[in-house]
């Protein structure tokens, strides 16, 4: 079997072309049933540029392709007006949790991916584990946060641990805190707690973001407001920006998990 695929076939079918043009015009008319004036104007503009444009550009070529294209265009135009599926707002990628009381606490559980090639490669290369905590501004004792991992006090955050760009002094950014490798022997997970320094007098802010690949489930981040625990997953589809990284010499990152 041999098929002639010449687009400008001499055997063009005027009936198909006329049908394609009629259906395209119908599709454009349906698009103009728009809920807002701006939608109407923008749809009319692009229906002219693409819809009418496709007919002008195609001319008498490929009548069957034109017809199939026109029918698809019509169906899509009908769906646009009939199926009500609004474009939802994505959850915020950056938000903050104010900590202004020593009873308050942010907690996050991480399960290091011990069995993965990524972890084993980093660990075998004497990779150094770090906990990254994102907070607003320049934190210096006593106006700072204190990090605890599996019940062991690790460090109070200070400016020497600041990591990444901060265009303004009050910008958010990571604090990079080394944790001993010994924490990982015999410990299936890390329970990271961040509290306000007991001497602090000012409110402090810990960053939160979206969560998609949590190692310990979507409820692994929690905030204790002094009376009860609240999950940012429930309230914001999010988590606190507390992460584990395994890094080699020169800051080479083998992996980052939360």
């Amino acid at each position, binding site marked *: *079997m*041999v*098929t*002639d*695929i*010449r*687009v*400008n076939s001499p055997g063009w079918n005027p009936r198909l072309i006329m049908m394609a043009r009629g259906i395209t015009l119908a599709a454009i008319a349906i698009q103009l049933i*728009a*809920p*807002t004036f*701006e*939608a109407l*104007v*923008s*749809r009319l*503009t*692009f229906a002219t*540029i*693409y819809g009418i*444009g496709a007919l*002008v*550009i195609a*001319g008498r*070529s490929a009548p069957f392709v034109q017809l199939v294209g026109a029918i698809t265009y019509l169906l*899509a*135009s009908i*769906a*646009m007006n*009939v*199926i*009500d*599926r*609004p*474009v*939802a*707002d*994505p*959850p915020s*990628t950056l938000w903050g949790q104010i900590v202004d009381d020593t009873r308050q606490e942010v907690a996050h559980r991480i399960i290091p991916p011990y069995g993965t090639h*990524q972890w084993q490669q980093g660990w075998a290369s004497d990779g150094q584990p770090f906990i990254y905590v*994102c907070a607003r501004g320049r934190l210096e004792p006593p106006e700072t946060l204190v990090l605890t991992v599996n019940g062991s006090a690790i460090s109070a955050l200070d400016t020497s641990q600041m990591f*990444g*760009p901060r265009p303004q002094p009050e910008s958010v*950014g990571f604090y990079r805190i080394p944790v001993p490798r010994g924490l990982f022997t015999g410990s299936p997970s890390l329970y990271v707690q961040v509290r306000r320094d007991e001497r602090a007098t000012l409110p402090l802010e810990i960053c939160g*973001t*979206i969560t*998609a*690949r949590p190692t310990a489930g979507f409820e692994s981040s929690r905030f204790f407001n002094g009376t009860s625990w609240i999950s940012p997953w429930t309230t914001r589809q999010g988590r606190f*920006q507390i*992460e584990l*990284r395994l890094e080699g010499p020169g*800051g*080479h*990152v*083998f*992996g*980052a*998990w*939360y």
Partner: protein
Amino acid sequence: MRGASPSQPDTVFRVRKELTSVTLAIGISDFLIYALPIADYLADWGALADIATGLTVSLSFLFIAISSGFSSLKISQASPPSTATDANPEKRSPGNVTPLTVLILLAALGLCSLEWYLHRDDRNPFLASSRPEANEDTWLTADGYAMLLDGHIAQNDGTFLLPMLRMFTGDAPPEPSEFDARAGHLYFVSFLVPWLGTYWAFAGTNLVFWWLAVVSVWWLGNRNWSEQSIGLIGAVLVATSQGFIFMGTAPQPHAVAYGLFGVLLVAHDLLLNRRLDAPFSKAVRFGWATGSSGLIYFVHVPSLIYLWLAMPLRTHWRVMVIGTLTTLSILTIWQIIGSYLGLSFSGGNSALATEAVANWVTIFRGGLQDIAAWGHYSRPRGTMLGAFWYPWWILAAIGWWKSPRIARNWAMVVLIAAFAPALLFTTRFQLPRVAFFAYPGMLLLASVGIDEIAKLGSRIVSSFASGTAPVRREAYIATVITILVALATVTNRDLITGSLRFAVNFHYALGTEW
């Protein structure tokens, strides 16, 4: 070989001009190296070779483009219409399709659908290459530059496209953003939102245009080379190419624009690269196609460069002017209407392009020293290699050498049309994603390279075996498949080993490393 008869008229490109251009570029690049100030980055041979290669490649394309312009001015005969790419249009193959061709083409479409699906969500290379383990933007969170779209993790620039999408769906009034000039992309996406939801509407639109790219390259391969295998190999190369894999499920217009560039090359061939009856009407139609594609993302730039280089200037300048004016009219019409709706059309790539030009002015004012240093700081070699890694360049070089003159000229115009804006932009950003617009020319030349190696393989095998036609054919097919699998392994290295190297190269361009 189609169009390769010895009695062809003058062409815009000649092999000797290309070789002369490359030789001249090598000489000037070596000279420029000596103009560099003593600096730490010159301490090793790898860095020096990086600068020399970047300058050589860039100057080669520049000189070829200039020589083509001069040659183009000299061609005065009105017929055939396009001596650059079509010396003998009447003798071209009509493009016959056999069941096997259809089967392979469907397999190629299935392959890009598979690549698209496997690289969804957090495995999308655009997103993955921004994660800390890619060791570029290590200050970002563990998910990289990400957003949640309908519960799917996706590249975060998509956030800025949602207001425009809502304008088309009627969910919200227009909000100005730096992506206002790309509204055409959101018009297409808005059709799929009701069916698929926002994430899959973006991804689905990308897939449709990925398919169109596959079909376009297959068609262009059939059009410019006589062997049907070239188009088919090219189709598979597009299906597994770095650029489409990288952009496949990102809520961004790049994959759509790539696909449209292939379609525009087909449109140019059908409208302008034949005997030109009603040339101005066809110029308007091509300009309309280019302008409407430019409302997606950037594709009008390589398309217009192609328009001006692919045909003789002296005889076709009116067509080029009309095509260009139509393109600009389409772009301007949306700008006027969009401004009326409250959009701003400020910032974004337009502002960055202006900055890139300003940087070039500064470089030229700085003299030879600054021009030579551009080869280091702007990473031209890294930009080109980020778009197409070494094996593709080697195969394309073989393909260029073995292709008939007409096809070689066509591919060279495509390469210049895509690489010129990418290289010009390097003073502001290094964007292999812009250089990837060269895929129709690059991958079809690489197809010829694969075809030639497979032919060599079949000859070698047949010298050991019986030498019968079926044995040679099997050896040919086995060699082609082996090379295609090897290349697909490279572009799928992220899935196979977890390495983000090629995704990082495509995202940020290589540095001085080799």
